């Protein structure tokens, strides 16, 4: 059964079909939500909130072929809602264990992963969302913009500034004590 048929069945109330669809996307959505929110429990809340909205509103989805993009939007809008409810307070860093390194030199990988983790942590969360959706999920910038509900130019500008701020963190501040994160990749 292809994805469209599964969506159509789920739209008619078949929860088993929805479970298959949900399972196909949950790992990457959970990973992306953890990268954006920097907190396992908040990521769980965002994914759960997005999935409940998806199941409840699935019969109103006009084009079943848009299910994946629609689900992404619901989950990442939940991430943004959570960030806004929390008032952008800094969240504790959560390092995850290495599983199956994708690049050859493991020691370099560990060092780079930690640098990246720190650079991401210092970004404003809504900027971090643009970086995660673009680089982790491979979304083109117009899709990132549509998913987060911001203009494409704003997504482009946020990505550009995020990368500049991350370079600064990695190349200049990497041996310095961790600064307090403020808005938009700036540091105290």
């Amino acid at each position, binding site marked *: 059964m292809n994805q469209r048929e599964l969506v159509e069945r789920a739209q008619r109330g078949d929860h088993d079909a929805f479970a298959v669809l949900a399972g196909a996307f949950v790992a990457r959505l959970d990973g992306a939500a953890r990268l954006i929110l920097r907190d396992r429990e908040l990521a769980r809340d965002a994914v759960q909130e997005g999935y409940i909205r998806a199941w409840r509103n699935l019969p109103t989805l006009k084009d079943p072929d848009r299910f994946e993009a629609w689900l992404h939007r619901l989950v990442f809008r939940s991430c943004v809602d959570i960030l806004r409810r929390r008032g952008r307070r800094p969240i504790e860093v959560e390092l995850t264990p290495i599983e199956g390194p994708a690049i050859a030199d493991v020691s370099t990988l560990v060092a780079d992963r930690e640098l990246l983790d720190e650079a991401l942590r210092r970004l404003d969360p809504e900027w971090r969302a643009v970086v995660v959706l673009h680089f982790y999920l491979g979304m083109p910038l117009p899709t990132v913009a549509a998913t987060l*509900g911001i203009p494409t130019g704003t997504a482009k500008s946020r990505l550009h500034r995020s990368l500049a701020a991350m370079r600064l963190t990695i190349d200049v501040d990497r041996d310095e004590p961790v600064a307090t994160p403020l808005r938009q990749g700036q540091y105290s």
Partner: protein
Amino acid sequence: MTASDRIQRHLPELMADLASAGVPDYFDDLLQETARVRQRPAWSSLERWLPVDTTLAPVAGRARLWSGLAILALVGLLAAAALLAYVGSRPTRLPAPFGPAGNGLMYYSSADGDIYSVDSSGLAPKSIVTGPEVDAGPLPSRDGRRIAFTRKAVGGDQVVVAEADGSGPRTLPGTWTDFSEIDWSPDSSRIAIVSSVAGVPSLTVLPVNGSPSTTLPLGMEVHDFWYLPDGRFVFLGVKDAVGATTYGFFVTDAGGANPRAILPPSTVDLDWLGMSPSPDGRSLVYHVWRDPDEHGRLHVVDIATGTDRPLVIDGTTVDEWYENPQFSPDGTHIMCLRGGGEVSRITVVPVSGGPAVSLGPVGGVGEAAPSGLYSPDGKTITAYYPALKELWLLDASGNGNDRKLTLPVNDLPTWQRVAP
């Protein structure tokens, strides 16, 4: 290679490693949770209640042509040809650079990089700049006599100027990276662009006569701009400073001296979206996305005084948003995109606020959202629907005389302004 170079090169792999994605242990609980939730009936969707069928109905064709009328039409055509020959022998009248004008040709570029023109009825498109070069984004000058477009080159884009019929193309000096915005000066003697200069998004003025270009010393990044009728610029400026990046609308003279903030700048990029000046150059319309209750709301600000007012639109619900506003050529109305849920429509509202009128087909949101442009006479709005790949001429009065064009466009065509 620095650490940041190395990391940026492997960013997707490193992020995948950092995310360490697997099926989360809460997945079963999540499914139990959703199973307890009742689904919303399909009929409750807003999308089902918008007049999609009405607006998408094909325009009725003409009845049979009677032979007597055909003869009359032929006589009329001959008279028109004689009149055109007479008018053509007189000096051409030019439109005023701002405000209402007559509708001339529409210009667009094809996917394979050629420039086309088509008359205002949308019939009989004609390729006017062809060849192996990849050309895009034709923009007619304010006097309607020339067009400017971009041409792909090694290391970036070049700006090419040609006559309105595509003849005599001339490449202006310079190759520009990250080219993003372009506008003609009021007297059509200069073109201003935004591109990256030494890594900074900057405003550069290119004389059409081929003289050297000038990058304006504004001391900040420029992300959007327009010429005003008096030759000044309004622009969205971004300043990087220690501790904060600030955003704001600025006005500056033609040489870029003494840029002045129209409103106090802020550290939030979503305070400054989609600006567009009025035809008289006195005000700007823009939209904001502010927490908690200004998600997609229009504002009008007086450029001289900084007096800012929200544009109150009757019947707006909490979930509705408005964006990308644009003044009508006579300055009495504002066209924008009105959205909610997964749909959006081109909408027109009086400049003082009040009732809004939505036009044409229902579009999507984000990258599927339609874009619109007023015709020079203000009676029509060209609207492109990327998800449908359709171009429409919408009746700006809202009377429903909308028409779909069958042109192979990839984006919104631009209009030539001619004397009314």
